[in-house]
């Protein structure tokens, strides 16, 4: 059911040309996917996706739209090449999933190798009930540090792009003004 709604939202996104509506739809899409995550036991992820996808990124999109205008031009030509690329990629993925272990099967290798350790040992090793937190902050704490750095890098990037004095546009001729 959620999946079907998601698909509908996705298609609507594709068709919509009012960017305002598109952004709102994207927020809804995120919320729906958060719902899906909850269904699939990923409560932490759902929480984050709701906060980020439906919250922060919608706000950012709206902020950007306020600056950029919210109408999209009609695509000039039928995009056959992208369609082809997408079909090939999608087809390949579907083909690839044929050999994938079935959805939700507890015997899948993915649930055993290291996942077993996390679930069985983490309480002895770290004594925290939320395994996601244990893995996030300790077992794979270094990834999280990288993630923090990514966020920081994004801030640096946005500061570089938007913090300057306004009205000092880059020169279209690209020549240095020598100052």
């Amino acid at each position: 059911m959620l999946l079907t709604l998601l698909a509908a939202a996705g298609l609507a996104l594709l068709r919509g040309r009012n960017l305002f509506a598109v952004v709102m739809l994207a927020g809804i899409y995120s919320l729906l996917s958060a719902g899906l995550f909850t269904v699939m036991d990923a409560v932490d992820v759902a929480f984050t996706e709701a906060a980020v996808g439906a919250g922060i990124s919608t706000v950012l999109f709206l902020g950007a739209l306020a600056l950029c205008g919210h109408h999209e031009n009609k695509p000039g030509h039928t995009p056959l090449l992208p369609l082809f690329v997408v079909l090939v990629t999608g087809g390949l993925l579907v083909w690839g999933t044929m050999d994938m272990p079935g959805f939700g099967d507890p015997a899948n290798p993915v649930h055993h190798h290291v996942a077993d350790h996390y679930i069985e040992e983490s309480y002895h090793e770290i004594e925290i009930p939320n395994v996601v937190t244990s893995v996030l902050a300790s077992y794979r704490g270094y990834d999280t540090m990288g993630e923090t750095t990514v966020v920081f890098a994004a801030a640096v990037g946005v500061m570089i792009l938007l913090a300057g004095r306004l009205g000092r546009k880059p020169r279209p001729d690209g020549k240095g003004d020598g100052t």
Partner: protein
Amino acid sequence: MSLDLLVSHYNYWVVIFLMMVGFYILISRGNLIKKIVGLNVFQTSVFMLYISMGKVSGGTPPILLPGEEGVLYSNPLPHVLILTAIVVGIATTSVGLALAVRIKEAYGTIEEDEINAIDARTEAAE
């Protein structure tokens, strides 16, 4: 293609369909903001693919209930990976949007073909 396969993989396939919708928006649309929306949809769908992998039928969220034996928990590792990926996604989105804003200021438009036309004109004038 057996029904069995269909049932056990239906979830993946819908997710792949969504992924491709996002990917298609990303590569076929000329509007820069729409492209970023597409990227978001694409990435969110990839997250769903990961979370689908971590799901164990009949499992519960991986928050341990000490003292209770025999509880089937879902795999926490994909959740952790996706938490990281979500953060990376929002980081990319914010930088992309900031770029779009600057492009709008510099060119007066965020439509790719119009930008290309402007660039071609200035290049020819040089």
